[in-house]
């Protein structure tokens, strides 16, 4: 129980203090996505998702590994299971594992977080089952390496040196280890596909990987790869939300320049 002076305060009787603006934004956003999902379900046209080279290159990279008889390495980053980037990485792993199973290519999947490892074990097993190749699934290829960032890095580098994967897919939340892994990947001649929303790591991905998915592109990947209209509807909804935010930023900037004291956006965010 909270002490009396620590007790939270309410806005309009029901909202947590300072959360009204967040709630309203999310409500508008959910409404937009729901509208797009409904359109998709009703068979009405919704905009296509633009081509993403990094995702189109996935099959090519796995195919190359198949031809070379070398494995594919997949890392979901080093963040825990509650990180949105890690969750996006689950969908991509599912696709990669299924494709590897279909091509009969070995997939080495490494993890730093033990929860992520547990989820990934299940994803890979299920993907091989769905591909009709449960016999090809090797549980030892889904590996938990270490909870320590650089021990994980050293483990992945060691795997690169010994197993020499022909494709390295790094999809998720990465930190300082990204540069080390990508450069060793380049040294062994692997095709490298990176995706992260960590802005500090994006330059490294751009420099060292062959293809990079930037920020929101990684969240749209599952919809892009599945081609399912309902999932595509959510991506279109989030794009509309971006347009609205962009409009608010432009209008807010103009209003701020005209009359900084009476900017309704500032007032709304301060009050709610």
């Amino acid at each position, binding site marked *: 129980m909270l002490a009396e002076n620590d007790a939270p*305060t309410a806005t309009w009787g*029901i909202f947590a203090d300072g959360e009204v603006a967040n709630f309203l934004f999310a409500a508008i956003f959910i409404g937009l996505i729901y509208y797009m999902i409904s359109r998709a379900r009703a068979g009405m046209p919704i905009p296509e998702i633009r081509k993403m080279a990094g995702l189109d290159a996935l099959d090519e990279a796995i195919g190359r590994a198949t031809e070379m008889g070398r494995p594919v390495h997949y890392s979901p980053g080093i963040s825990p299971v509650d990180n949105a980037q890690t969750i996006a990485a689950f*969908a991509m792993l*599912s696709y990669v594992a299924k494709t590897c199973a279909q091509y009969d290519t070995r997939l080495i999947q490494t993890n730093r977080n033990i929860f992520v490892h547990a989820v990934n074990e299940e994803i890979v097993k*299920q993907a091989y089952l769905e591909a009709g190749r449960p016999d090809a699934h090797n549980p030892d290829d889904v590996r938990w390496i270490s909870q320590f960032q650089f021990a994980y890095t050293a483990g992945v580098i060691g795997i690169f040196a010994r197993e020499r994967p022909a494709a390295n897919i790094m999809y998720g939340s990465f930190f300082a280890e990204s540069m080390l892994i990508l450069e060793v990947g*380049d040294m062994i001649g692997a095709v490298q596909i990176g995706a992260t929303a960590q802005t500090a790591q994006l330059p490294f991905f751009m420099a*060292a990987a062959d293809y990079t998915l930037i920020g929101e592109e990684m969240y749209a990947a599952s919809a892009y790869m599945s081609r399912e209209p309902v*999932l595509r509807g959510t991506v279109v909804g989030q794009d509309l939300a971006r347009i609205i935010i962009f409009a608010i930023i432009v209008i807010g900037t103009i209003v701020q320049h005209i009359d900084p004291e009476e900017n309704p956006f500032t007032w709304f965010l301060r009050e709610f």
Partner: protein
Amino acid sequence: MRKELPLLLTTVFGLIVVFSKWFYLGEVWGLHDIAESWVLISQGFAVAIGAASLTRIHGRNIQRRREDWPYSLVLLVCMYFYIILTLYQTVEGTEARWIYDAYITPVGSALFGTIAFYITSAAYRVFRVRTREATVLMIFAVVTMLGMAPIGDVMISGWGDLARWLQDVPVGAVTRGILIAGYIGALATGMRIVLGLERAHLGGFTGG
């Protein structure tokens, strides 16, 4: 049922977190803190799963005398030695602390230090002027690097200010743009999971 129950749990706990974040009652009831403490408790069990996984993989390497099996032996001996030591002494024990401070921390720092060399080799590849984009990248990198180093201002007065402006204004604007777009993407991913549209975390690719 194999997928329905986890899906239901995902939705329920997703809604609990949303409820406790936005609504007054959720905050008063402290639901978010309760859910977080459950995560911490289950993390304790998860570490045991990790140790079991390592034992299985490396135990098999040793048993079948696979290539480089002595390294697997070293790993298992070190891991179990440290587990037993910390169970006996706790992590604050003299020897346990010494092993951590004298071995694990310096090895991690050493590996971190090698990033500088890797950055150099990656930068060399990127800065080879092959395309228009690479040329622009190289020009901006040179301006920023020299501007951030003392030599920039010595060569041309105001170079440092230009480099800092590049960092603060164009780079800052783009970074924020990526961040905002990323947060919206993360929100959409969360929504897809809470609504049960995204099920990849339960195994099996949606569609495809």
